[in-house]
């Protein structure tokens, strides 16, 4: 395959640096706006082979009169190779409507700010190629969380649940002496590795029907966080038992009904259900010991 022949479909030829000064940003913006509108009209007639993407974005703002009643806004965004859902909403915001609001930061799936409900699934905007989606692309805030504005949801409850599992290392008995680290076997690190990758995006929590129904349920992310510590051999047995006691409370691991949707949506591919199940077994084992 020739490497030179790709992407004839790129809509906008990359601008020549010299040209940029010549055309004022204002003109460019207007032109692009026009283009956006023009495409809007023609989008249905011809399959534009991905020249613009049609996105429908959920809008709500408690303070702005015509946004108090939630609605969907349509935007037509010029497609570029490699465009992600986040790129598309950023484009819509910067070029069409600066009040379009969403969280985002890293653009590389590490900050966990931009989990949205895209075409019916929880996904990270920055990690989702728009070309993989069916159009129009429907972008909504995460379900089961209160909407603050547009795509921004209230994360407080999620954070509360994360904090509820005492998400911090509690080993007090540390090796003495200069530069002495605690030893950990490779196998053990491997065991907790996936669980440490969580970026707190809340996609899992939003996909779980149990978490939706039971507000007190710790939820997959928090349980996974607890797993990360409970399985870490650097903490003593008693601490592990203490952790299991937190997890085996009524709204802890037992609430999980193994729906697997958390595992399916997790952008970091953490085997959440597996971790939760393992903790259930651990808790049972611990209780059996006392009988």
């Amino acid at each position, binding site marked *: 395959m020739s490497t030179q022949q790709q992407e004839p479909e790129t809509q906008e030829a990359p601008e020549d640096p010299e040209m940029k000064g010549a055309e004022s940003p204002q003109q460019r913006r207007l032109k692009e706006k026009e283009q956006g509108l023009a495409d809007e009209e023609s989008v249905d007639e011809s399959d534009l082979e991905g020249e613009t993407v049609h996105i429908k974005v959920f809008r709500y703002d408690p303070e702005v009169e015509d946004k108090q009643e939630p609605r969907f806004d349509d935007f037509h965004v010029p497609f570029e190779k490699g465009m992600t859902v986040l790129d598309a909403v950023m484009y819509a915001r910067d070029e069409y*409507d600066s009040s379009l609001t969403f969280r985002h930061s*890293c653009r590389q799936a590490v900050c966990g700010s931009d989990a949205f409900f895209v075409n019916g699934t929880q996904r990270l905007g920055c990690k989702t190629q728009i070309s993989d989606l069916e159009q129009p692309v429907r972008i909504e805030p995460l379900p089961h969380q209160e909407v603050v*504005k547009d795509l921004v949801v209230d994360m407080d409850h999620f954070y509360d649940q994360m904090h509820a599992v005492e998400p911090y290392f509690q080993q007090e008995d540390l090796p003495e002496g200069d530069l002495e680290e605690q030893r950990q076997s490779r196998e053990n690190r491997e065991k907790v590795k996936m669980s440490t990758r969580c970026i707190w995006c809340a996609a899992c929590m939003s996909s779980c029907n149990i978490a939706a129904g039971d507000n007190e349920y710790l939820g997959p992310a928090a349980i996974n966080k607890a797993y990360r510590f409970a399985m870490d051999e650097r*903490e003593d047995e008693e601490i592990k038992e203490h952790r299991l006691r937190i997890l085996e409370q009524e709204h802890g691991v037992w609430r999980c009904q193994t729906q697997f949707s958390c595992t399916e949506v997790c952008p970091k591919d953490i085997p959440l259900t597996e971790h939760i199940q393992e903790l259930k077994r651990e808790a049972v084992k611990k209780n059996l010991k006392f009988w």
Partner: protein
Amino acid sequence: MYEHDVIVVGAGGAGLRAAIAAHEAGADTAIVSKLHPVRSHTGAAEGGINAALREGDDWELHAYDTMKGSDYLGDAPAVETLAQDAPDETITLEHWGMPFSREEDGRVSQRPFGGLSFPRTTYAGAETGHHLLHVMYEQVVKRGIQVYDEWYVMNLATTDEPDPNDRRCHGIVAYDVQSGEIEGFKANQGVVLATGGPGQAFDHTTNAVSCTGDGHAMAYRAGAPLEDMEFIQFHPTSLPSTGVLISEGVRGEGGILYNEDGERFMFEYGYANNDGELASRDVVARAELTEVAEGRGVNDEYVHLDMRHLGEERIIDRLENILHLAEDFEGVDGLVEPMPVKPGQHYAMGGIEVDENGQTCIQGLYAAGECACVSVHGANRLGGNALPELIVFGKRAGRHAAGEDLGEPQIRTGYDDDVEDEEGVDLPVEPGEAGLDTTGGVAADGGVTADAEGALERAVERERERVDALMRKDDGIQHAEIRSKLQNAMTDYVNVFRTGDGIRKALSIIRECREQYQDVYVDDPSRTFNTDLQQTYETRNLIDVAETIALGALVRNEFRGAHWRQENQIRDDENWLKHTLISWDEGEPSVFYRPVILEGEEKTYEPKERSY
């Protein structure tokens, strides 16, 4: 109004470490951050933390490597502090449960990294920064340190004595993004800025959207000089559409760079003797841009990084995460196509001028992390040296702010007798506010030196007015337009290749941006989560920061570390073993220089030729 002893602005690695240290020193500490802590950009760091932990290694070697890497623009006391404290701090992270990669015997793993004489980069998989950030946030939760997350800090509340060295910082003004409320935060002992890098000054960067140099700009306008801002590290392999970093690992394993004509340009055009793709970051970055400039770039924008010949097995084994990155962020399958790459802004070596204790020339104002310049990285940062900087100097700043005695610093700050004034540069336009509206400047309303409450009240009042003005206005220009113009100017003219004329052009455009900013308005009328307003603020900060980068680049007429000048392509130790400092005098930047400190505790670091 809120009140705490120590207020830390920013919750990346540096901010969290500072907060923990201040808290441990007994101060009532709070963190104010525009992002929830775990969203900070520290989470993106992949490589690792340099620390001399092992037999055969030694902090002095680390200091030596760092000094050499900095192209002798690092200050020895800072460099030595970094090298001395990094091992302990790294072990502390381990004691806090950080999941470092492990050796067979259960000890933490270390790996070799560019520019290091010993494999001392301590890592946790390919996501060291993520773990560092999360472990530190866990400790903050454990200690119950108060976090005001999604509060955007707008400005500092500083007294307004004419000489910045006499000023004192009493707190900050912040805006609750969720509710739109603007509040003062009084800091009884100190304010620590840990706001991260200014990468968004460039169009193409590996930095997050939140890296807007807010701390730089706030400190700068309050009177603390910015140091060595011209030194910007560009990474040669970032994805064109997002700036996501493709690590050096690909080239390390044997990945090849091709231009549009399918030529292996690193060899064919003789950019780097025989190192080819493995030449140092700046060399490769310049080569790529030369290809593009000479019309051999793919789509006139980027080059290709090809790893297909390595074979599927080897790629999946060693570079699997690269496949995911290319697929997820660029829509390219690295097994069947070459990956598009181009240089992207990556790291700012310069920042707010501070001493080893993190203190600026303004009493009670501290800075740590990427926004500060101690300076340990000098003209070029070694990979794996930023994370130890966060924990070492974050901790020192926190402790000092909380009132601990860390001894007399050897690094001087602020304008004093030691400095050398810039005699006059040929500028196309007046930089700085220069007669434009100076809202936001510290000494804007002149007059009485205020006490703590007074300074705070006045600062809050000023931000309220500023927000009202921005919101009231309903036409004009929107910040996004100014921002993209600024970013393009920086990428076009203050990028890897720098010429006097180009930089002057950039300065003119920055000036235009400033003028346009006079006319900026916020379209979104809502007080709830108004990111439009927040970004409008950030754009203002970017203008100030971009200007210092350009100014620094213009005055430094030599080639040192990451800074290349066409007019003088050699390292000029005779004239330039000194830091560039730019301070904001009543709305006008003034440039001065301070000599580098090459005398360490026991030895002096003699500048040596940098060889590739």
